[in-house]
């Protein structure tokens, strides 16, 4: 369910194009399923909610967000464990997911995507008629 897209050379080419935006990070992601809903929880600290980009193309779901890390005024950096750049990750949507019913919220630097299974994929009871 919502497997990660296996990329070939494309990632290398994209890094070349987006060099000005700094490195690209793969955000840590939780995926869980309950009833007819699949939820993706994606860590995107430092990303402004308005700049988060969620797109679906050819059953591929891509999330992207630019980290905004302003330098505190009058300060110089003396130690660093994380760097500004871009969060990006792609997932492949199985046919059972309705691509038109994806809900996205962003709070405290966490992007939450709610995916619903399509009506056709839901289990159905078939009544046996008496002959």
């Amino acid at each position, binding site marked *: *369910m*919502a497997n990660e897209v296996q*990329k*070939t*050379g*494309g*990632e*290398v*080419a994209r*890094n*070349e194009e987006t060099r000005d935006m700094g490195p690209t*990070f*793969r955000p*840590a*992601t*939780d*995926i*869980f*399923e*309950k009833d007819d809903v*699949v*939820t993706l*929880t994606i*860590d*995107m*600290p*430092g*990303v*402004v*909610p308005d700049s988060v980009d969620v797109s679906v193309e050819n059953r591929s779901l891509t999330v992207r967000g630019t980290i*905004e*890390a302003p*330098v*505190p005024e*009058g*300060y*110089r*950096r*003396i*130690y*660093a*464990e*994380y*760097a500004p750049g871009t969060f990006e990750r792609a997932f492949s949507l199985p046919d059972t997911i309705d691509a038109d019913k994806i809900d996205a919220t962003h709070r*405290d*630097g*966490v992007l939450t995507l709610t995916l619903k299974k399509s009506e056709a994929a839901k289990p159905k009871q078939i009544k046996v008629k008496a002959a």
Partner: protein
Amino acid sequence: MLNYGLSQAQWDPFAELRQLQSQMNRMFEGGGRSQRAGDGNWPPVNMWLGDDSVVVTAEMPGVGKDDIDLTVRENTLIISGKRNPSTDDDDAAWHRRERPSGEFSRSIRLPLRVDPDKVEARAKNGVLEIEMGRPDAERPRKIKVKAS
């Protein structure tokens, strides 16, 4: 990265090799994005130095303001708290679980002693910024040279 003018559609075995290498690097360096919250290395921090103050910024997405505890003593800052998992539901089926959760505590040594009364913390989009000032008595003073 060199491309040798090849179009993207053409298969480049070296591109795949480079990609594998960068993936491995990312896996090992972790980039501060480790999987466990309780190992003393979470959250990842950056440190900034000013004239009479120091700023620590920490990436802690998903941790609400009320779940963060800050302790400042002399030249040590302790960031602790609790990060809730994506769901508490036991019936949920997990497909992927990469985000660290649980209780965390991280002790950070500062390059100067700070005044606990001069601490200001702000949280924005999952990044916590803690600004700490040096005690007045320890500010460097200019000493005028008198003419004899």
